[in-house]
């Protein structure tokens, strides 16, 4: 407020404002020169390095983004590959399981067939042995019956044969032997 009053007074006195402020054209040129030097200096010392640094940063960011993209691609490929590997592994596991089941079934069938064959052989052998035993037993019984029959006949004939029977038997034998 006071400064405004002073400027108004100076203008009223009819002097130049530059004169009243003590500004000369030399000082203006000098200031302009300083400003140019400062600007050029700042340009070279600050602006350019910062610009360069920003550019480098941008390139670095681009590079990182590219690497990220590459990595993403690689991850996608790996994921796809791993899915394929997983799928193949599942298929292989299923095939192995199926094969194992087949082999186990085949083995079980073989064992059952072998057991049946063995049982059949055993039954046949037992039947054969039973037949032999039965036949032997029958022969034994027949022999015993024959023994008993002959013994009984011997006793009966011994008791019942008369001298006439004996004579007739002797003569019959002599006739038979004479014809030989």
């Amino acid at each position, binding site marked *: 407020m006071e400064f405004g009053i002073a400027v108004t007074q100076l203008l009223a006195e009819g002097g130049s404002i530059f004169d009243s402020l003590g500004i000369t054209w030399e000082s203006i040129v000098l200031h302009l020169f300083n400003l140019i030097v400062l600007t050029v200096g700042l340009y070279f010392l600050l602006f350019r390095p910062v610009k360069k640094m920003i550019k480098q940063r941008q390139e670095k960011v681009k590079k990182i983004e590219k690497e990220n993209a590459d990595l993403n691609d690689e991850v996608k490929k790996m994921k796809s590959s791993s899915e394929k590997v997983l799928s193949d592994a599942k298929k292989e596991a299923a095939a192995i399981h199926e094969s194992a089941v087949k082999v186990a079934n085949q083995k079980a069938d073989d064992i059952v067939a072998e057991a049946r064959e063995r049982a059949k052989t055993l039954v046949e052998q037992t039947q054969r042995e039973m037949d032999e035993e039965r036949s032997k037993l029958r022969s034994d019984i027949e*022999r015993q019956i024959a023994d008993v029959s002959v013994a009984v006949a011997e006793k009966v004939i*011994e008791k019942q044969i008369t001298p006439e029977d004996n004579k007739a*038997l*002797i003569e019959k034998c002599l006739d038979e032997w*004479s014809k030989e």
Partner: protein
Amino acid sequence: MKAKAKNRAKVVLAMKADGETVAKIEAFVRSRGCDGVRYKIDPSIGGGIVIYIGDKVYDGSVKGRLASVKRSV
């Protein structure tokens, strides 16, 4: 002596035979080359006659015939 023994037949009977039967027996053994007979009574043969001439045996006894029947059974 040995030749004599060889030509003698051994006859086994279950009971004593009459003269007719003895004559038939002796005729038979003579026809087989024997000049003598030795008799033996053995009731265990059951009946009939057994004649031994050397290694040959003529078995017409009840016991022998039953044994033969038993063998065939």
